[in-house]
């Protein structure tokens, strides 16, 4: 097995080098689930409360579309799995994709793997070391989650199966990232493609869970939920995930030996010998560099919008079956159940699209650290104009993604029988999130201008917004904390009515942050700091 020589040494090196990232991912994911397990008993203090919720949720397609099938909801364990399962598995999926992409194609793209491979190290050693690291991370997350749930007094069988499903879902997406990393030359594309598969997995299970559940079998997250933690557990669906993981890793290994170091399977084709007229200004360059990313995110939002629009009429139908529950839920939220469902859909898509917005804003930073910014700044382009060009793409791209989300959801909902008169309403309901996304762009550039070392905090803030937005109520977070998230300040259209003041205030804050960032950027040194 000379192809694996050096694996252990490389694994140790990775654990040492990336211990920060490894720790952050594990702690955040485990902490969220642990807090949930502790908090959920406060939310449902009595069995009566659990029974009521279980009955109501079984008929609430809106909630099922975001969380998963309604199973075992009259138990605390079932509630934990329902409220935190799907979202938690998305997080372990992201963790695995990020780590695998970074440790394999990222190292290769940076040219560091070349140095490693020049040592007496086997052809598969780095890949295996990456897989071992990511497997160990997923294992740690799964074991800790199971331990926390058992410690909270939840049934052992359910806790273990819930923990194991986290491990396996993480491994599947690690495998997806590993496979994609063999095919493409760019780490960005690895993140984008594997992330799209993750998004598709989330949407597929939503579609399946709303229907008869068949479609969910095509989603790793859906399959994991078929193991029914805390609700008559069954192990065999998890074997499917094991098989898929093995297949993905084997396929990646087979592809890896068929390609050169640094190359993908798709050979780079020659491009234009001269630049198009549009590539002649900082803005033209920023757009050109972010075009592929915008298209990718646009496609993702489009698919999710279509899926949630298509589910829309089903939410109506569920209510038709149970008027009493519809009134109960409607009374609580202010709008109709369908409207609340769409409000949640748009919040989800806006938070997702913010991934693009932050990535786009941080181009200002990555251009600088990659030493490309100095080439542009050595021409008669001011720092202000250089940064503003990338930010323009971030700001406009946010609006474009929201417009795509709104139109895709509205049109599909209309075509599926929800009525075309809803299209403008849903379009506006998506667009109101623009100022909240702009604030995140502003935050990213403010960090870049003032403390460039810490631009990564932008991502942590986004994760916090996601946790607050989807789990805040169940986690029992205080309302002042929830109100810190700009996404909670946006009027929840179409369930609520449109009020302009919050949008104006959010936009003003975004503008202020942007100004702070640009000013900071003009005052500080440019380069690898």
């Amino acid at each position, binding site marked *: 097995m000379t192809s694996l020589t050096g694996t252990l040494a490389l694994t140790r090196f990775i654990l040492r080098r990336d211990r920060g990232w490894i720790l952050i991912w594990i702690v955040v994911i485990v902490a969220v689930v642990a807090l949930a397990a502790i908090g959920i008993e406060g939310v449902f203090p009595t069995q009566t409360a659990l029974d009521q919720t279980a009955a109501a949720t079984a008929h609430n397609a809106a909630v099922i579309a975001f969380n998963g099938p309604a199973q075992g909801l009259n138990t605390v364990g079932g509630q934990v799995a329902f409220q935190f399962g799907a979202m938690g598995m998305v997080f372990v999926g992201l963790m695995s994709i990020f780590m695998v992409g970074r440790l394999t194609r990222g190292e290769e793209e940076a040219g560091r793997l070349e140095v490693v491979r020049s040592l007496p190290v086997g052809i598969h050693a780095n890949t295996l070391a990456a897989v071992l690291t990511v497997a160990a991370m997923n294992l740690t997350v799964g074991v800790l989650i199971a331990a926390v749930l058992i410690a909270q007094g939840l049934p052992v069988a359910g806790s273990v199966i819930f923990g194991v499903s986290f491990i396996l879902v993480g491994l599947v997406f690690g495998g997806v990232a590993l496979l994609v990393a063999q095919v493409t*030359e*760019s780490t960005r594309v690895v993140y984008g493609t594997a992330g799209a598969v993750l998004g598709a997995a989330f949407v597929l299970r939503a579609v399946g869970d709303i229907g008869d559940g068949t479609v969910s079998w095509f989603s790793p997250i859906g399959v994991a939920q078929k193991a029914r933690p805390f609700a008559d557990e069954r192990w065999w669906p998890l074997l499917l995930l094991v098989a898929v993981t093995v297949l993905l890793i084997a396929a990646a290994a087979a592809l890896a030996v068929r390609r050169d170091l640094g190359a993908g399977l798709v050979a*780079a084709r*020659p*491009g*234009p*010998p*001269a*630049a*198009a007229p549009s*590539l*002649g*200004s*900082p803005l033209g*360059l920023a757009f*050109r*560099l972010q075009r*592929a990313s915008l298209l990718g995110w646009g496609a993702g939002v489009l698919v999710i919008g279509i899926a949630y629009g298509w589910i829309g009429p089903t939410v109506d139908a569920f209510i038709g079956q149970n008027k009493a529950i519809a009134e109960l839920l409607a009374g609580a939220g202010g709008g109709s159940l369908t409207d609340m469902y769409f409000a949640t859909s748009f919040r989800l898509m806006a938070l997702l699209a913010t991934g693009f917005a932050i990535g786009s804003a941080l181009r200002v930073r990555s251009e600088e650290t*990659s*030493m*490309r910014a*100095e*080439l*542009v*700044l*050595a*021409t*008669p*382009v*001011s*720092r202000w104009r250089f940064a503003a060009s990338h930010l323009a793409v971030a700001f406009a791209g946010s609006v474009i993604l929201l417009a795509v989300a709104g139109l895709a959801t509205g049109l599909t909902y209309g075509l599926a029988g929800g009525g075309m008169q809803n299209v403008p309403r849903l379009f506006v309901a998506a667009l109101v999130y623009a100022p909240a996304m702009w604030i995140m762009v502003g935050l990213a550039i403010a960090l870049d201008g003032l403390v460039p070392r810490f631009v990564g905090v932008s991502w942590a803030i986004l994760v916090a917004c996601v946790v607050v937005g989807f789990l805040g109520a169940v986690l029992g977070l205080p309302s002042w904390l929830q109100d810190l998230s700009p996404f909670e300040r946006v009027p929840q259209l179409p369930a609520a009515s449109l009020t302009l003041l919050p949008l104006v205030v959010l936009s003003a804050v975004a503008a202020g942050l942007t100004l702070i960032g640009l000013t900071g950027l003009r005052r500080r*040194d*440019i*380069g690898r700091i």
Partner: protein
Amino acid sequence: MPIAISTSGLTKNFGSTRALDGLDLSVKAGEVHGFLGPNGSGKTTTIRVLLGLLRADSGDVELLGKDPWRDAVELHRRLAYVPGEVSLWPNLTGGEVIDLFGRLRGDFNRRRRDELLERFLLDPTKKTGSYSKGNRQKVALVAALASDAELLLLDEPTSGLDPLMEAVFQDCIHEVKAQGRTVLLSSHILAEVEALCDRLSIIRLGRIVEGGTLDELRHLTRTSIIAETMHPAQGLADLDGIHDFEIDAAHVRFEVDTDHLDPAVRRLSELGVRSLVSHPPTLEELFLRHYGDELAQEPERVDREGDPTPLPRR
């Protein structure tokens, strides 16, 4: 002759590391000025200050009569820059990048661009991600040389080029010089500096330790002499400024400080010269003596007057 670049007492710290330590650099307009120093001596930091990317902690800096930090955009219309480590957008082609820089600078000259592509044998249809280091450097060089910039700031521009391309580069710099443009050429390739530069400055630990024309600096170096004499070479080894004296029958070989050359040659001719080979001092030697010394002893860093450190003598 007007001054293109002038700095005095420039300092720049990165945390506790002092990158520039009272740097005094003066480059006249129209000259090719060599900027020599080993890795980490502050060449790149100096150039980045001149580009307005970094702000000096103290000292004065003037570029083409302006402040590089405040007037960056205005100055950048008049200069072109080639970094030592060229990093480009991997999914753009070389041709696209060159055009982009030309348009950003605003003096895009397609005819000259195409001519330079041909001279540097660069394929403009290749994605820069698939270029070697040398080819990425050619992209930056073509973009800079295709401009009308009156000042070229070149930071080790040939470190990835092969000898053929190095020759093309030297031709291009000769042309630039003939057009009366100014070049600051940072390098540690001494042959390149000897071939191109009118004057040079040697930087060590963030300050200029030696400066002047090549001829001026050669006074500080040694000439090596191999001679065959009719009489045994008596008394030669005792003269001032003679080093590494070797004698083998009628052949002598020694090095002599350039300012002690005359007595040594007189003594040789008294001995009756049959054959004589003399090597002029090379920059290499100057350089090695400066940095060889650095290895032997920690340099003094107390005198902050900005005087050039006297050349150490053995």
